[in-house]
């Protein structure tokens, strides 16, 4: 049997979220192609993959999962959608397949003991929200007392996820939080922005995805809300969100887990080994965009996990999902390793453990200047003091509800 590590790629290139889903999916695929072309796989294990269109719909996602999970050499799943993540969270426990949800999914899944198969690497909505408040606090010289912050959010679990943390922060820092939901997919937001106008918040946090983001920016413009007081989550800070607003979005800020642009070596390699050979998945000018690069790091981390697993279970072998999980739980990407991978400047170091499935919470703020994104802050990390207890409480509730028990640290060395 051929030595092939199989990567199921759940993606959506149609439907309301296609403009954002497409570059993301392209980045993932291009990275796989690049590794095969440049390195010949992982220690000689060829990488294969198959894309499955979910259209962001839960049931289609489950079907894709069921179809692809049994493939020989299957590695892990990255469902690219919060709803699908929820549905798969239960299933992966039985099937023993890791679920990688970089920057999305359940915030409580950070607890690797309670959620042995979920990997919200690099950050959850709680860490993101925390960092945004830290950033705003810095702008306000450390004092948010009496300030008003509005959360304009996609009315779905994705959008609601940060609320508990923000409420906690509001209590701690003394700002007033107002919640303004936007019905999915977010094409009509006049009421939301009328409320913004009525309440005149000092800052607006934007928790949107897909068409909701650009519409929010346009409505902000139409209601005259200053864009530089708006802060988006990292799913509201990519090119498709601002491109057709153009000048109107100037000054708008958003978090970013990764850099963008074509300078990083990994991007250069992709251009060289994939696009220049005419094998690019999408158009060339999209390479290095925010979501594209996010796709690249997701894939890079998955492959690192496989490589790490091979170090323990045998180089040049095809890893089972369980072995991959071990790899994911023992990632140790220091700056040196990042440099080797060509990820220098794209992301910060990250190391995971059996109990910590997030690895790091490094994130930066970027600002749109009318034609491109520029970083406008240093790297932040979320405040453990706040997040830890929340994760713990949430995980316990989850386990109780599902009548499950957490792993102990001893069970980790599978």
């Amino acid at each position, binding site marked *: 049997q051929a030595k092939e590590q199989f990567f199921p790629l759940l993606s959506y290139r149609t439907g*309301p979220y296609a403009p954002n889903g497409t570059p993301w999916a392209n980045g993932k695929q291009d990275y796989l192609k690049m590794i095969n072309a440049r390195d010949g796989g992982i220690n000689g294990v060829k990488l294969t993959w198959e894309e499955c269109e979910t259209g962001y719909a839960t049931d289609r996602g489950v079907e894709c999962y069921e179809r692809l999970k049994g493939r020989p050499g299957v590695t892990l799943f990255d469902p690219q959608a919060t709803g699908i993540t929820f549905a798969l969270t239960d299933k992966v426990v039985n099937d023993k397949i890791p679920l990688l949800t970089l920057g999305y999914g359940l915030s409580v899944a950070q607890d690797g003991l309670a959620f042995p198969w979920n990997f919200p690497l690099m950050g959850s909505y709680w860490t993101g929200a925390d960092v945004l408040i830290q950033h705003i606090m810095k702008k306000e010289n450390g004092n948010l007392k009496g300030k008003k912050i509005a959360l304009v959010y996609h009315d779905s679990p994705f959008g609601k996820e940060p609320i508990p943390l923000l409420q906690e922060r509001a209590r701690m820092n003394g700002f007033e939080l107002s919640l303004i939901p936007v019905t999915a997919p*977010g094409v*009509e937001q006049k009421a939301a922005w*009328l409320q913004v106008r009525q309440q005149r918040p000092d800052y607006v946090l934007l928790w949107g995805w897909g068409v909701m983001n650009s519409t929010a920016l346009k409505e902000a413009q139409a209601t005259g809300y200053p864009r530089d007081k708006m802060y988006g989550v990292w799913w509201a800070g990519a090119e498709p969100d601002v491109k057709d607003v153009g000048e109107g979005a100037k000054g708008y800020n958003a978090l970013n887990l990764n850099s963008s642009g074509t300078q990083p070596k990994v991007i250069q390699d992709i251009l060289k080994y994939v696009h220049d050979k005419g094998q690019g998945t999408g158009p060339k000018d999209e390479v290095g965009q925010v979501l594209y690069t996010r796709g690249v790091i997701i894939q890079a981390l998955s492959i690192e996990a496989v490589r790490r697993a091979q170090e323990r279970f045998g180089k040049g072998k095809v890893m089972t999902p369980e072995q991959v999980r071990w790899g994911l739980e023992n990632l140790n990407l220091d700056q040196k390793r990042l440099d080797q991978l060509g990820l220098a400047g794209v992301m910060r170091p990250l190391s995971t453990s059996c109990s910590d499935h997030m690895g790091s919470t490094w994130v930066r703020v970027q600002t749109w200047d009318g034609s491109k994104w520029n970083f406008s802050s240093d790297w932040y990390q979320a405040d453990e003091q706040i997040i830890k207890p929340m994760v713990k409480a949430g995980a316990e509730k989850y386990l109780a509800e599902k009548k499950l028990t957490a792993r102990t640290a001893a069970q980790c060395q599978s």
Partner: protein
Amino acid sequence: MGFFLETLFGGLMVGMLYSLVALGFVLIFKASGVFNFAQGAMVLFAALAMARFSEWIPAWTGVQSKLVANVAAFLIAGAIMFVVAWVVERLVLRHLVNQEGATLLMATLGIAYFLEGMGQTLFGNSIYKIDVGMPKDPVMAFESTFQGGILINQEDLIAALIAAALVALLSLFFQKTSTGRALRAVADDHQAAQSIGIPLGRIWVIVWCVAGVVALVAGMIWGSKLGVQFSLSTVALRALPVVILGGLTSVPGAIIGGLIIGVGEKLSEVYIGPHVGGGIEIWFAYVLALLFLLVRPQGLFGEKIIDRV
């Protein structure tokens, strides 16, 4: 007070934009008794065509004038909608003469799927821009009258005017021409209409074509507001309460319905929403429409539903 008026005004403007989409539904229903599920897809399809051609034309011809590009794109998109209408009649409607409403509704759904797939295949599935030069920044009005003034969105205002003009034109068409009468006859009874020599095929092409052009205008305006991409087709869902509130068969009803729904929706969200956690506008719109229906089951201006033995 100023804010209330602003909300009211905002609601009116949005309502007009809903009307524009609602109008497409009304047209086809009134003229053929078909509830056209594909209206949303047609809006998307037309907007995609317009957006892409306004991008391609300068690239192909080298003419850089935005006006030329937009006008040409509009015309081409209009022509494409005509072709769509023709094909729909040829391949679908013609074979479903005299079938029940549910069957026809389902057929339009098939058309919707087809158009969605086709549109994205031909024109791509990213976000595209329609820039017809609508002013984006708001103006402040009545600053002296109210504290803080009223913010008026010029883009909305222009869009609302276009919608109003279109509706007026179509009302006239239905009321005054003999084709308008024939259309209503077709809606009542396909077979009887055929039996007295009304050429169903031609009628359907005309109606779908007009609905296509209405979809194009709606797509252009919504597209320039939102950007053109798949979600545009979901605007149809927001327009449905408008259609039933105004009455499925009434062109002016679409406007009045739009205004009522627009205002009701925005006022409820802004004034009631915060007390119940927000996000109520969409179901509120439907409930509002439902309340009207309880009083008038055929909508405000719809033709009375006849059941007689």
